[in-house]
């Protein structure tokens, strides 16, 4: 970053973007009416429904920015943005394909072999193939460069041994991108010698075990790799270059609408319920939340536009996630004043269910995808302090 001044270009919202938004909206209203899903909070992490992901794939709403030859539609990043935000605010169960659409697909596109692209990307776009992220480990969280999972060269490929922890949705995924050490560890150059692999989860030697989270959902996993063989072309990008890839992946991951809309559905229902009697203090609280959401959305769209111009707004992206995830939590804390959150059961009260579920899930918002402390460190580096 060369300046401390933040300027966000305007997103170019043309008719096709609006039309797409309308299409997605009416599909979701229809599905919701049919009872094909129950709107849930934090749906991009808690709502796993492969069948629903397949439906989205059939509508052509996954991998929309990818080349047509790989099952994409060559639409803009803004088109994808609109699809994702409509899915989030509807509370649709989108976790199964979320990571593959957002992160693994683009990674494969940028670094995968031609054969990998041809065989996997169209299946991801069809909502039939899901990918988990294998970054964290029992001994490696924020300090990701310390991963111990190792890949050794063997004839015709690599052999991977190690344990990955917290991988979201791995139990319904066919693949995992695994960050492993391929070179000797050097304390002075900690970021070297790391490589990413695309590992089929049905390979011999892989075990995936679900972990129940505090909200009662079993969405993340511990995955063990015992001498798992992968062929040479499972390497993503260049051997030893894994760290660079991860950092650019994370910039994409950090500024999307899921970083401030995880609890929007609870807010939506609360306002709908309170609208008829909204005044004074309650109106101020609600208005203040809505203003901040609007501002964050403007900023997040601005980052998307910067990415679209080929810039790398790492600092801005980190700021979106830091501010956005705190807001997602804050929304629930502020709604408590008017809608106390006591019971886990909802007795048919939809709003209460959404609020209590949001509360039970919110500690994760400021952790996953890089903690807010780590993000502030990125900002500080961007400003030249470290």
């Amino acid at each position, binding site marked *: 970053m060369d300046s*401390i001044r*933040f300027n966000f270009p305007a997103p170019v919202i043309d008719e096709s973007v609006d039309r797409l938004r309308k299409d997605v909206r009416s599909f979701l209203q229809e599905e919701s009416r049919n009872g094909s899903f129950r709107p849930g909070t934090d749906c991009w992490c808690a709502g796993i429904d492969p069948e629903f992901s397949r439906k989205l794939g059939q509508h052509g709403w996954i991998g929309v920015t990818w080349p047509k030859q790989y099952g994409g539609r060559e639409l803009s990043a803004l088109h994808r943005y609109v699809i994702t935000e409509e899915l989030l605010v509807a509370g649709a169960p989108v976790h199964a394909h979320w990571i593959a659409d957002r992160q693994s697909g683009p990674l494969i596109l940028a670094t995968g072999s031609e054969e990998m692209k041809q065989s996997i990307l169209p299946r991801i776009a069809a909502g039939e193939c899901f990918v988990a992220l294998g970054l964290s480990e029992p001994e490696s969280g924020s300090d990701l460069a310390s991963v111990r999972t190792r890949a050794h060269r063997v004839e015709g490929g690599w052999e991977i041994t190690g344990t990955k922890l917290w991988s979201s949705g791995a139990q319904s995924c066919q693949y995992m991108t695994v960050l492993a050490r391929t070179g000797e560890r050097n304390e002075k150059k900690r970021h070297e010698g790391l490589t990413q692999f695309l590992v089929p989860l049905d390979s011999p030697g892989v075990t995936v075990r679900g972990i129940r989270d505090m909200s009662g959902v079993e969405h993340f996993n511990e995955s063990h790799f015992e001498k798992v063989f992968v062929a040479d072309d499972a390497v993503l990008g260049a051997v030893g270059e894994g760290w660079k890839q991860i950092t650019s992946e994370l910039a994409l991951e950090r500024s999307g609408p899921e970083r401030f809309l995880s609890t929007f559905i609870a807010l*939506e229902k609360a306002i*709908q319920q309170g609208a008829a009697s*909204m005044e004074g203090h309650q109106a101020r*609280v609600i208005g203040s939340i809505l203003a901040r959401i*609007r501002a964050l959305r403007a900023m997040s769209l601005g980052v998307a536009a910067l990415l679209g111009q080929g810039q790398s707004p790492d600092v801005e992206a980190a700021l979106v996630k830091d501010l956005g995830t705190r807001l997602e939590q804050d929304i629930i804390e502020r709604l408590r004043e008017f809608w106390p959150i006591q019971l886990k059961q909802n007795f048919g009260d939809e709003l209460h269910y959404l609020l209590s579920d949001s509360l039970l899930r919110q500690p994760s918002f400021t952790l996953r995808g890089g903690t807010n402390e780590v993000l*502030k460190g990125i900002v500080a580096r961007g*400003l030249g*302090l470290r």
Partner: protein
Amino acid sequence: MEQTDQLILDTARRLFSDHSGAEVVNRAEIGQPPEALCDAVMAAGLPLAWVSENAGGVGGSLALGFNLIREAASFAMPVPLVETMVANLVLAESGLEVADSWAALVFDGGQLPVVDNGTVTGVVNNAPGVVSGSLLVVPVSDRGLIRVATFAFDSLAIEECESLAGESRARVILENAVPVQLSPVVDNMTEDGLRQFCALVRASQIAGAFEKITELTVGYVKERQQFGRPLGKFQAIQHKVADIAGESALANAAVEQAIRMLSEHPEPFSGDNVAFLPVATAKVVTSEGAATVSRLAHQSHGAMGFSFEYPLQQYSRRIWSWREEYGSEFYWSERIGKSVANDICHGRAEGGQVWDIVSR
């Protein structure tokens, strides 16, 4: 922004940094007017940024003007440039002649004075930019419709006072006052439209001040050493600076969006629903951020930031005063809450969804 706009903005930036600066600002506050700066600003025609070329102005776009305002705020400009720009735009929009002196919009977001039989009566409590010799531009209510009246500084009862930051504020008392000029009813100008416009002006100023505060703080913590290293090496300080940068980025995103929305709008003073939400958003986010930004910046600066000589205080005092003007975050957030609730109740949102309103 267009290329000519960028050119004007660059010129202004150069002019500000040549003629303004911490010392000029501080001296202006303790009684030494910044004459060279005043002359340069006038000579460059900046107060006419928003006046069309036909009417002798610069013909800059709305976006240019707001960016100029943001820039001026980041220099804590101790001259009523912003006030004069706004007053001149109101004059131009109402078909009156613009002055080549300083001008002030005698409007504080509260009730308008009333015009009856050609004379104006009312009190405006907190009018900004009313300085000796300036032309006073007073939006007045003619049975609920807006007209614009002008007065010479000397012709009215004026009680001069200062904002928290030492900027001129005045109570202007009009008692059957006879205007120099009185416009006919101005179409597409409403009291709320004026309030919204001025709120966005203040939001832009706060965003500009946030940028400067970020710059000052980053610069300071890189220089100042304690325990054998720069303060910026301490994580506690890094996190404060990151939070300041976050509020600054958010404020800018909100302000830029509102400016874009208003720029696409043919009638900037109409106060209609298209402009309301983005403008209110910008004022809420900037005003709310002022507490965070000033608290963290002062904490990071230690006692130095509390001294008059060091420039930080010029910005923290300004944002504390600007956040209250033309509606604080409390005022505008209440209006947002009520307006959204109202739209929901009256079926003005697709599918009855708050999201439909938020995402417009």
